[in-house]
């Protein structure tokens, strides 16, 4: 492509190349900016390219200000503000696109370059993955190439030449980057980051609307990585607990406390948690969720160790942190898979766990009444009723599906009687409604279930598609007990690798059919690389910086020490550079150095020798001054001449050096 470009006139070529680089930088943004901004940016870039290609004049500045004013108004209309992250990104994209229409003076070009660097950074708001890093490295090389090319004023040098210079500069700049990255002290945010900092990330939400977990099931991205200290617990025990939802309005499940997002953390009042068995110890690397909770294996009795956060447990066994997790977060936790919680007495239980939305799901309530009226079941109490409900799920022709269609008003009725198919959220929701209708306290728990082991680096990987919803019922004398109705419908979902697969496209199907093993191992390798990237680069925090200092011998390192080490390295490199310049100024030719030594000595004795005098001339002067006494020196000087200029030197320079030391110096 570079050669095709190179055949154009220089101005056209340079402009088109710069536009291509800017387009590449903006490309990842198009998914995140409002549609009008994307359309405007693409249109402006193409128009600018056409102007350059057909050598037409640029539009007048007045027009640009007009478009900019419209863009600001549109941003205000979209976000209700021009401040904050998303509005800022939108404006920067518009500015960068419009500035390409104003490439008149040298200064304008620089503005485009610097806006370009900033736009590159804004891409990282949305993704810091390895792929984004690679794309932006290409973009950086492209921008540097354009910048270098702009400073080659002569003729039309090929772009590849500028690209090579840019490549070398980046390569040589990489050590500087590495040192600064490792040692630059990490602080918390200098001022409060806008609350929209991390929107646009998918994941579990605080509420569960019927139908929105199924969208997560299509999302193959990673939610968290877990490294177990000991052996991995069995798949069927891997319930990672997320938000617990207890109030239901017929369509949406909400947590019990209305002030869920408040900074006030509800401390566990009446948890009454009893654990048994050996704890499972593990380390979680959680992808940013922008939610103020931690995912832990059901259930963590002691607070997870989260650097930089305060943690607290709610009465529903959920671990909260004091601010949303906006970055990759690593923490250690200890969980017990066998536990009991909650009050033993129903009087101590909040009545919300029995509430149902009024005038909804009449057939389900009818079913509940029938079951309770059954004398056999009534004798068995709550456990028998639960078993009966699970039995109905097992044998009643219910199906586990990703795509059950859109549910109407009475979601539980539709599940139990009409459609008889649903995703885990439908099943759990319908099950809890039935339980409550039978006066058994119940609630929905959302989180992740299962996961898979990456065979390359041994990390346990939990994806968004592992999102799950299950139920907890309260039994007198036992407290809250986990019941997973999905396991009754589809035993394969729990306890094995089987997950529902969305329909795949033709190519992926063919690929998967031909080499299922290859696809799996490629994916494992890629995710291991990604994990290494996450662990080493994205999760490089202040604590790891300080650990590094500890390793090199600081007893109690602080961030000031980091600064000192950094300054020390800079001073050392600067001194080394200065030493090099001193060395560089010296005469490097050993022959000339030797001759200069003799010359200086003779000058000190008052022999008048010009700086450019050759050995023969010096020899003449020595003979004229000292006569016979100077003969050995004169002879040596002639040998010096011979050493330098004869076609085959008789004596080596080293030998001449030794001889000089033994010469009787004339006085």
């Amino acid at each position, binding site marked *: 492509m570079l050669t095709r470009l190179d055949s154009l006139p220089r101005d056209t070529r340079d402009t088109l190349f710069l536009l291509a680089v800017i387009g590449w930088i903006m490309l990842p943004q198009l998914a995140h900016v409002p549609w009008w901004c994307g359309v405007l940016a693409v249109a402006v870039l193409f128009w600018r390219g056409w102007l350059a290609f057909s050598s037409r004049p640029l539009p007048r500045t007045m027009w640009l200000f007009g478009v900019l004013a419209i863009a600001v108004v549109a941003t205000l209309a979209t976000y209700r503000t021009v401040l904050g*992250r998303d509005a800022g990104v939108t404006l920067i994209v518009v500015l960068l696109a419009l500035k390409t229409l104003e490439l008149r003076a*040298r*200064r304008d070009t*620089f*503005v485009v370059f*610097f806006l370009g*660097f*900033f736009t*590159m*950074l804004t891409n*990282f*708001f949305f993704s*810091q993955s390895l792929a*984004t*890093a690679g794309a*932006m490295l290409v973009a*950086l090389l492209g921008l*540097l190439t354009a*910048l*270098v090319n*702009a*400073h*080659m*004023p*002569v*003729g039309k*040098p090929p772009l590849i030449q500028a690209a090579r*210079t*840019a490549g*070398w*500069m*980046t390569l*040589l*700049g*990489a*050590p*500087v*980057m590495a040192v*600064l*990255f490792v040692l*630059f002290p*990490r*602080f*918390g*945010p*200098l*001022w409060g*980051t806008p609350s929209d*900092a991390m929107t646009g990330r998918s994941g579990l939400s605080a509420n569960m609307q019927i139908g929105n977990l199924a969208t997560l099931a299509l999302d193959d991205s990673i939610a968290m990585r877990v490294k177990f200290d000991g052996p991995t617990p069995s798949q069927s025990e891997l319930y990672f607990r997320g938000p617990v939802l207890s109030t239901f309005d017929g369509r949406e499940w909400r947590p019990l406390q209305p002030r869920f997002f408040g900074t006030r953390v509800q401390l566990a009042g009446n948890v009454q948690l009893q654990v048994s068995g050996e704890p499972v110890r593990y380390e979680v690397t959680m992808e940013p969720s922008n939610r103020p909770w931690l995912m832990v294996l059901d259930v963590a009795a002691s607070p997870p160790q989260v650097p930089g956060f305060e943690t607290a447990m709610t009465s529903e066994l959920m671990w909260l942190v004091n601010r949303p997790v*906006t*970055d990759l977060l690593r923490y250690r936790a200890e969980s017990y898979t066998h536990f009991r919680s909650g009050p033993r007495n129903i009087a101590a239980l909040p009545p919300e766990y029995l509430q149902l939305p009024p005038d909804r799901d009449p057939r389900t309530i009818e079913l509940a009444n029938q079951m309770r009226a059954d004398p056999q079941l009534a004798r068995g109490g709550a456990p028998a009723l639960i078993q009966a409900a699970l039995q109905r799920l097992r044998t009643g022709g219910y199906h586990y599906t990703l795509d059950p269609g859109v549910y109407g008003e009475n979601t539980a009725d539709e599940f139990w009687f009409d459609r008889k198919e649903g995703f885990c959220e439908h099943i759990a929701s319908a099950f809890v409604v039935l339980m409550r209708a039978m006066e058994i306290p119940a609630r929905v728990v959302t989180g992740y279930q299962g996961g898979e082991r990456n065979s390359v680096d041994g990390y346990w990987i939990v994806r968004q598609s592992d999102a799950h919803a299950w139920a907890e019922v309260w039994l007198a004398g036992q407290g809250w007990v986990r019941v997973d109705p999905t396991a009754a419908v589809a035993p394969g979902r729990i306890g094995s690798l089987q997950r529902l697969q969305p329909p795949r496209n033709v190519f992926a199907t063919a690929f998967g059919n031909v080499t299922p093993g290859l696809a799996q191992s490629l994916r494992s390798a890629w995710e291991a690389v990604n994990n290494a990237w996450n662990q080493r*680069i*994205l*999760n*490089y925090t202040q604590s790891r910086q300080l650990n590094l200092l500890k390793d090199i011998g600081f007893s109690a390192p602080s961030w000031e020490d980091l600064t000192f080490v950094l300054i020390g390295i800079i001073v050392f490199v600067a001194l080394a550079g200065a030493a090099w*310049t001193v060395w*560089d*100024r010296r005469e490097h030719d050993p022959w000339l150095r030797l001759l200069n030594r003799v010359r200086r000595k003779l000058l000190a004795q008052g022999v008048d020798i010009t700086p450019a005098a050759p050995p023969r001339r010096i020899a003449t002067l020595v003979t004229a001054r000292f006569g016979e006494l100077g003969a050995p020196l004169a002879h040596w000087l002639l040998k010096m001449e011979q050493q330098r200029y004869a076609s085959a030197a008789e004596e080596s320079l080293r030998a001449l050096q030794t001889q000089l030391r033994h010469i009787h110096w004339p006085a």
Partner: protein
Amino acid sequence: MLTIALNPIAYTRQRFRAWWQARLPLSDTTTLTQRNVYILPTRPGFMMLATLLVLVVASINYQLNLGYLLTFLLAGCSVVAMHVCHATLRGLTMNLMTPDPQFAGASAQLRVVLTNNRNAIRNGIGLAVLDSTVDDKWVWTDVPALGSSTVNVAFQPQRRGLHHVPPLTAETRFPLGTFRVWTVWRPAAQVLVYPQPEAFPPPLPPGEPRAGGIARARLQSTGEFDGVRQYRRGDPLKVVVWKKAAKTGELVSRDAEQAQRYELWLDFAQAGKHDTELRLSRLAAWVLQADRLGMEYGLRLPGVQIAPASGESHKRRCLEALATC
């Protein structure tokens, strides 16, 4: 004193510059080293610094480790660019070719050979006369690896006489434009500057009768030719009889009778009633005109007299006398 009062900074700067330049050695060849190459950040350089600061603040505030990587890579590139920029000039050898004499006020050129003895190209080196009044004074060149390139630097000599070549400056902003690396060089060579020829001089003065010859007032028939003679070196092309030359292959010149009897003297005393410089510039114009016409002419200046002759070397002698008198 007035300058100091009006603009003390500019005055101090000018004095500092004069003092600095006077310290520089005079030499026709110079090899740039660490000691005579200067470097300062440019305005885009400060913009780059501001960009880096904004990037690092954004990385801190949004806790973007990838943002840190980008910022520091860019910072690393800027540091490398600084060294690349300095190395573009450091080690370069500049050699001034002996300059030809020039006319005052005309735009003239200095030929400078740049020699690169490192194994990599040196890009984007600009040369110019220091403190030049020419608008676009820079001449840009690349010097190939282990090679040399020649540039012609424009300058406008203002006063006639024998002067030092004005101080030259070389500059580069390659590769990122964030730093300006420059050097100042005072060549030792001198350039002879002829007086500026008058733009519209009056016609040549009438000839004076040749001493000892017969005076005949046949001024009207100037240029009428009376015979031919062998071509002599220095004869203008218009007196060559081309038809004859084409036939015989031998160059023959016309010989005017008038030239044999009258002598053209360009006299300082007859060059108008202006001041010396204007008279000299009229004389210079006459010299050029007479030379163009292929006439023999002599020059009389206060204290100097050059006997009538013609040809290139005679013209040079006359112009030199005009330049230095």
